[in-house]
């Protein structure tokens, strides 16, 4: 994705492994207003599939993008309501 996202907040879960990236993403999203975009930085390779699956199965969130940046996986989740 070439366009720059308007990131509201960044959550750093680098080093944490399953289930913490998903659990902490959920807690961080709960604190945000509708339309906010949360950036999640993780090093757990499973977070690519897990955050995708979590966003798909959870009401009120939408996965905007996922990027691999060296050893860091960057996830962008929008709160939809």
């Amino acid at each position, binding site marked *: 994705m070439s366009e720059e996202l308007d990131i509201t907040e960044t959550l750093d879960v680098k*080093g*944490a*492994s*399953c*289930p*913490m990236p*998903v*659990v902490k*993403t*959920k*807690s961080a999203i709960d604190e945000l207003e509708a339309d906010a975009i949360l950036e999640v930085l993780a090093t757990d390779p499973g977070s690519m599939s897990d955050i995708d699956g*979590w966003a798909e*199965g*959870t*009401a*009120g969130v939408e996965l905007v993008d996922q990027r691999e940046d060296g050893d860091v996986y960057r996830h962008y989740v929008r709160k939809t309501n």
Partner: protein
Amino acid sequence: MSTDTPSSGEDGVGEDDLPEDREELVTRLAELEATVADLEAETADDGKKMTIIATKGTFDMAYPPLILASTAAAFGWEVVVFHTFWGLDILHEEKSRDLKLSAVGNPSMPMPNALAALPGMDRMATRMMEQRIDENNTATVEELIETAIDQEVELQACQMTVDLMDYDEDDFYDGVTVGVGAATALQHMAESDVQLLV
């Protein structure tokens, strides 16, 4: 075929009835649509429920129920974990910090059972696993319990086994539900979309 036998459609009885019944059909259709909408609402993803029955108290068996429960709660599911028999040790504040991995009968252990049965082997296997968990930054059992409670997972301690093991309500983490039995567990299982026995 006699003429006074009600025909089953060959002379178009159904079609003759249709116009008169149209209003009734429209009403019936509206009712069915409302029922479908209700059912769809009931089965929506955000309304899912899960019940896990945790029966094991070894170090490795403490993880799956806690990880699944915390993750399901992150999906917005309503989660109950019913702990019974050795599964109670996961909720026992003191014992949960000292759960053991069994070296005997574990085909994944890099040693024969005859060696694994020697004194101290369970402790050694447990230490090795604890070290790996630390190195990998995997959450500890205690952290997972706190996470689950924070996310409003209902951790239940089976009253019959609490009495059997001679445990006290105060032995468990704050937030653990006591005074529940098989009927409570079954009730949650019947209402759940996912039921697991670990």
